[in-house]
């Protein structure tokens, strides 16, 4: 049996994040890519694989042109926020097949600045095709997640307080991360429960931030990684799965497709949830964290609310989750999947300072895209 080459993340980086009114989205891509390449000890001329997506089909062309990259391999698959975890799976395959040697995954967005300049409008689906059966009813983005939250509350007795506990745990991590948008702005369960109602049962504190920012990740073979400056973090397993686009097409709203993507990734890695030292999951809304914990098998169906309320997800808890503060308290420029990878790598390299999880050897990242529509899972080890 031939042994497949092992693939590692050898560099991570972030652009300016938070409120960045003075930089363009392409500039944030460049800043993040530069930071990741510097981290790896590589230059732009080493990059021959480009993995990135944005709002339309011109994204990869525009980005490669702007950065003056001439990749031999390109992937611009767009499945929402999970795209960057999917890109890891695709980069592993491309690197193993020899279709590229150094893969750059990069993201950048000025979602906050655009919204403040009114260049980005509130989410409204266009009433074409299958969307014509949803578009006339005013179902907002938050409303879509609220439907899932309501169903979980109905089936399992999950409470608003348990949802708030998720937001508080992410906020506690953010208090240890000076780069987090909510650093210095602690949140209590009581305050979360009093925050403005957006789409019942979800309140403002249940909703992610809207920030600017970019992130990047560099992958290469373990063989190449030996000559580089950073401690390599190996990709142990990957998986991806799709569910629905329109909410009425999701048969069981308590069953996130992370159940499939996670099982594949964990099996490939040869680990179980018990082996995971640090967890980075997409947290567009608090309910998503609960659904993800159950789907990945960190607790049984219906048990995620009490798990969150026990304090397990926060600092000092048994299941450190979103240690940078996540999308709820650190940053969320629209599709933050890349930041899950950046934080997991920093944790596995032991570089997280006050928020460092002791003895972190295995990390799991689970990206979710769309409206709980797609999931991609990556298991990392060091």
């Amino acid at each position: 049996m031939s042994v497949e080459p092992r693939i590692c993340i050898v560099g991570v980086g972030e652009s300016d994040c938070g409120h960045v009114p003075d930089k363009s989205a392409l500039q944030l891509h460049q800043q993040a890519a530069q930071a990741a390449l510097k981290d790896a000890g590589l230059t732009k001329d080493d990059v021959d694989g480009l993995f990135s997506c944005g709002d339309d089909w011109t994204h990869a062309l525009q980005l490669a042109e702007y950065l003056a990259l001439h990749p031999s391999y390109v992937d611009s698959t767009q499945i929402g926020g999970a795209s960057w975890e999917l890109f890891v799976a695709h980069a592993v395959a491309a690197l193993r097949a020899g279709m590229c040697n150094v893969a750059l995954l990069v993201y950048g967005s000025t979602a906050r600045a655009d919204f403040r300049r009114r260049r980005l409008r509130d989410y409204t689906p266009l009433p074409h095709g299958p969307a014509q059966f949803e578009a006339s009813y005013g179902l907002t983005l938050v409303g879509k997640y609220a439907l899932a939250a309501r169903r979980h509350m109905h089936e399992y007795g999950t409470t608003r307080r348990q949802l708030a506990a998720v937001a508080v745990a992410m906020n506690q991590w953010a208090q240890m991360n000076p780069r987090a948008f909510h650093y210095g702005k602690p949140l209590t369960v009581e305050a979360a429960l009093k925050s403005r109602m957006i789409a019942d049962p979800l309140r403002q504190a249940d909703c992610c931030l809207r920030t600017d920012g970019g992130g990047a990740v560099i992958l290469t073979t373990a063989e190449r990684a030996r000559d580089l400056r950073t401690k390599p973090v190996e990709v142990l397993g990957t998986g991806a799965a799709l569910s629905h686009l329109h909410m009425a097409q999701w048969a069981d709203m308590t069953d996130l497709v992370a159940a499939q993507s996670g099982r594949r990734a964990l099996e490939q890695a040869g680990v179980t949830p018990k082996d995971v030292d640090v967890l980075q999951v997409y947290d567009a809304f608090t309910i998503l964290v609960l659904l993800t914990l159950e789907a990945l098998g960190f607790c049984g169906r219906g048990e995620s609310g009490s798990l969150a309320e026990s304090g397990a997800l926060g600092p000092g808890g048994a299941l450190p989750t979103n240690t940078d503060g996540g999308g709820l308290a650190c940053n969320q420029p629209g599709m933050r999947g890349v930041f899950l990878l950046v934080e997991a790598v920093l944790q596995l390299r032991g570089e997280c300072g006050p928020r460092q999880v002791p003895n972190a050897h295995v990390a799991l990242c689970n990206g979710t895209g769309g409206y709980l529509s797609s999931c991609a899972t990556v298991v990392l080890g060091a």
Partner: protein
Amino acid sequence: MTRAAALANHLPVIDVESAPFWAGTRQQKFLIRHCNTCGRSHFYPRHACPHCWSENCEWRPSSGRGRVYSYTVVHHNEVLPFREMLPYIVALIDLDEGVRVTANILEGTPEVMHVGMPVEVVYERITEEVTLPQFRPRAQT
């Protein structure tokens, strides 16, 4: 402003696959697609059955009765005309025929809403072309 004018940008763009459905609502009928090969129904309407890909499908009238699978009360939406309707209810309704539909719950207050609540279709005529299916609570039977 009339409801038609307010909803203008959010009204269904009727196409070849959906035209019979909207012709049905204009006549106070809620039509769903039924597959003669696998025996299952589906909604939204496709030409072929999404379960078995058979093209042997037909339109059948639904009872228009069902139960709320989940719902939300929307309190924040900056997009017109929804901003002026706040708060309003959006629900997913499981029709008795086994398909799930998105709609507003009219004539229902947030206080009476609950998962599993029995509802029935009502037709909201918006324009000459578009009559939207909506739902309202019905007495338990």
